[in-house]
């Protein structure tokens, strides 16, 4: 037999192999020195060092990682696997979780009790509460489930809703309308992501507006909850969802990115205190994040965040032209992202809190400051066992009702001329006491020179020379009901001698250079 072809083939394979290993080795070895130095400080075993390096550096920053994920997913697809890397391919090709049930049922039970608490306490503050159950990516008839697989998610959600009902908490179950059948699921959800698409969010928007209109006490005018008011956009082959990122683009495909823009005039703002960000303008300017539409990056981006940009502890939407002059507070998880912008076209003010990240106060306290007309909690099935949501009922409503305000400053106006300084501010003439709450409001802000979308209001500790608390206000304030705009909760206690002051800035702090601002009608109250 002629050995030459065999030898050549083996040598060629060896060459390919060594080249591949060399390239991959070089990419890892650049990350080694720092990692090894970090870990040898702790004197842990070498095996632990490499395990940690592998986990944190190699797997997160691995050269060509997405290529290998795609190859792996393709192989799984070719071998007929319906479950792969904690993901299930449903009978219609959509991707879902492979978990049989929602974990930690105890937290779900706690959630039901927490909702009961919150609902009752909000009643004392004369604020109605509605729980909205977002759907799960499995039809209620279970036709999408591969043969032999079991799942209990819908059953567990049924239990939760039954408990909530027993506690006399108002709820709206979106599942029958959005995931009752396999066809509905296909319409509601992204194929490769855990979340619903804006198509599903729009259906939810319609159901919520119907429900709120039906509920006693609300005289709502639902102006935009029908498709003819909206323009639907779609960018094909653009979005690899959270499940898709686990299994690659060849296992379950790639979604189209969908977003809606209104076919009517809007003027809105979206302020995100956490990021010191205020976005103004029409609907697209305020809520659409165009970087997800312009740039395609299957593995590094999450275009689901095309609305609002992500989950924040708190963000506020203000819409001067909304038909319903109401302030709604929404307790959210990530499912709210495409839904809230639809609601913002109907309501003048929407405050959205994410309990997973918001730590400034209890939900109840926030409601006592801002007096929303209604509170809504919208959760996906997975979030029902998240412990952060089980603590939403904390707080004492009776105590909050007994709180009194003492006016410290009223109708105070100040002009801050432009300066060439990043720290251009004025100190308000009020004495603050540690451990107390203070409300701040302003009638209007006028931009005299320079450019900014908002301003920082700061409580500053002159003793430790540090910022105690910072809030941002949009330039046009967007507070139509004349209610308090900002609450500061100060640390410490009344016995302590503190040197806190409220500073009003000419723009966002550290960005005040060249900006002149006029504050008109500042009020500061002490809440006790």
């Amino acid at each position, binding site marked *: *037999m*002629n050995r030459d*072809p*065999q*030898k050549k*083939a*083996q*040598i*060629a*394979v*060896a060459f*390919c*192999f060594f080249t*591949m*290993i*060399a390239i*991959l*080795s070089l990419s*890892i*070895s650049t990350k*080694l020195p720092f990692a090894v130095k970090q870990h040898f400080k702790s004197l842990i*075993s*070498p*095996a632990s060092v*490499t*395990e940690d*390096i*592998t*986990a944190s550096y*190699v*797997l997160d920053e*691995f050269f060509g*990682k997405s290529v*290998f*994920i795609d*190859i*792996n997913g393709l*192989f799984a697809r070719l*071998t*007929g*696997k*319906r*479950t792969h*890397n904690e993901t299930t391919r449903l009978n219609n090709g959509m991707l879902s979780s492979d978990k049989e049930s929602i974990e930690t049922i105890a937290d779900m039970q706690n959630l039901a009790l927490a909702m009961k608490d919150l609902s009752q306490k909000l009643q004392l503050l004369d604020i109605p509460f509605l729980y909205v159950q977002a759907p799960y990516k499995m039809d209620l008839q279970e036709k999408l489930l*591969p*043969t*032999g*697989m*079991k799942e209990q998610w819908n059953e567990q959600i049924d239990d939760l809703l039954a408990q909530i009902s027993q506690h006399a908490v108002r709820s709206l179950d979106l599942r029958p309308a959005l995931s009752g059948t396999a066809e509905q699921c296909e319409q509601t959800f992204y194929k490769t992501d855990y979340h619903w698409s804006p198509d599903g969010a729009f259906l939810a928007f319609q159901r919520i507006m119907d429900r709120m209109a039906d509920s006693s006490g609300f005289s709502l005018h639902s102006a935009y909850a029908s498709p003819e008011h909206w323009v639907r956009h779609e960018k094909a082959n653009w979005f690899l969802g959270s499940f898709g990122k686990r299994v690659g683009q060849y296992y379950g495909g790639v979604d189209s990115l969908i977003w809606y823009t209104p076919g009517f005039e809007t003027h809105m703002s979206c302020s995100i205190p956490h990021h010191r960000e205020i976005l103004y303008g029409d609907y697209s300017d305020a809520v659409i994040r165009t970087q997800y539409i312009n740039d395609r990056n299957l593995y590094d981006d999450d275009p689901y965040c095309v609305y609002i940009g992500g989950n924040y502890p708190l963000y506020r939407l203000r819409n001067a032209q909304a038909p319903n002059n109401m302030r709604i507070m929404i307790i959210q998880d990530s499912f709210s992202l495409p839904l809230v912008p639809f609601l913002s076209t109907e309501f003048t003010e929407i405050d959205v809190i994410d309990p997973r990240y918001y730590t400034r106060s209890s939900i109840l306290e926030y409601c006592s400051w801002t007096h929303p007309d209604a509170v809504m909690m919208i959760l996906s099935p997975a979030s029902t066992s998240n412990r952060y949501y089980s603590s939403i009922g904390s707080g004492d409503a009776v105590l909050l009702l007994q709180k009194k305000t003492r006016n410290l400053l009223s109708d105070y106006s100040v002009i801050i001329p432009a300066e060439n300084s990043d720290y251009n501010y004025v100190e308000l003439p009020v004495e603050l006491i540690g451990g107390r709450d203070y409300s701040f409001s302003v009638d209007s802000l006028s931009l005299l020179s320079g450019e900014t979308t908002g301003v920082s209001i700061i409580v500053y500790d002159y003793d430790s020379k540090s910022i105690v608390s910072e809030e941002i206000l949009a330039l046009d304030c967007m507070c139509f009901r004349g209610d308090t705009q900002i609450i500061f909760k100060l640390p410490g206690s009344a016995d302590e001698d503190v040197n806190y002051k409220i500073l009003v800035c000419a723009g966002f702090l550290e960005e005040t250079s060249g900006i002149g601002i006029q504050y008109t009608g500042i009020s500061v109250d002490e809440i006790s």
Partner: protein
Amino acid sequence: MLFTSIEFLLLFFPCVFAIYYLLPNRLKNYWLLISSLFFYGWGEPFFVFVMLGSILMNHRFALLIERMRGHPEKQKVLLILSVASNLGLLGVFKYLNFITATLHALFPQTQSLFPATSIRLPIGISFFTFQALSYVVDVYRGIPAQKDLFSIGLYISLFPQLIAGPIVRYTTVMDQISDRRINLESVSDGLIRFLTGFNKKMILANSLSVVADQAFLKPDISVGFAWLGALCYSLQIFFDFSGYSDMAIGLGKMLGFNFLENFNYPYISKTITEFWRRWHISLGTWFRDYVYFPLGGSRVKNRRRLIWNLMIVWTMTGIWHGANWTFILWGTLYGVVITIEKLLDIPRKIDHFNPILRYLYQSLTLILVMMGWVIFRSDNIALALTYLKTMLGMNGSTVIDSDFIFFAREYLVYILFACLCSTPVLCWLRKKAADWNGAAEAIFIIAFCVLQFVLFIISFSFLIMNAHNPFIYFNF
């Protein structure tokens, strides 16, 4: 450090091999020794000293035994001391916890005399201890002792076969330690072998382990799922272990060493006796050469002595595999079956059976092997018996359930492919191609090489997806 880990493939392997190929011949062995100690010490920083102690001890014993040639009584004493020391080392690290726990369970009053121990098991201790022991015994039997400590250190600690075999005899590699050829052909040949093993482990063994783990984990399973689990575990352990052996042999070849084969398609065996000539060959031959033959083997005066010899060997084989009653039971049961086969002379007669009887017996062999793996896999004997009862429909379980349906469908391709690859179908195809013409055989071989590389890319993608995939035979 595992061969199927990113740190081995992308850090240890390129670094060690690059330097190895660049070094002059006289320095290669030192580099290999350092690398091997580093390889072992990476996962077992303390136990590398245990291994070094074993190397030193066995090196000295061998030299002393050689010095005592012409004094057989003294040689015998040294041999006994060596055997006792090596087995003592193994006994302390591997079996002391088990012994004390068993003693306490049987005789609670001994708890104060012998407190409970929790000694960690050094990885691969059974392999390198047996390897060292075989060297000393071979010196006793007449081969010249290796005077160079580094060479013995290299022989015992060589990283390709250090932690999971094959158990390499000194006579296999003694010439290669001092004189070996490395060329492009041997390196590429070794690499293809390495890739074959890598793919077996990552694609087949790891995938089938999912089914096996589920079957052995769930308390109430159907008869069908029990059989499916047993089948998958049988395939998993074969591809896991033979895959590792392929990798070890391949790496050895890339370094210029030629190790003997450790597996020869064991699942086509017609008898249990044949199975153990095809499964973990290096272990079977070790026990044959160092226990069975010294006891007299088959050439003993009476049947009772033959049975005794066989039962000792197989019980020890079971004990070698682990410190648990399941392994002892597993080994002992093999001893019983092999003894019966020996007494009835089945291995010699089977080819003369009528075909139906032959295939029936072959099927029974496979079933017994699978059931043996159930005992091997179970955490304790009670669980093993429960599982076996389920397999036989004696637990009142349903015939099939949703788990069986789901896993059978989900892993059908893997199971079928694994069953096919556990037979010598590729060898048969190659032979057919060769019979046809040389070009066909060349195409076959080229296609095989390319396939292994493509499968390696797929295997590597599995590695990216799963950070942790330990070998089964690691704990021996």
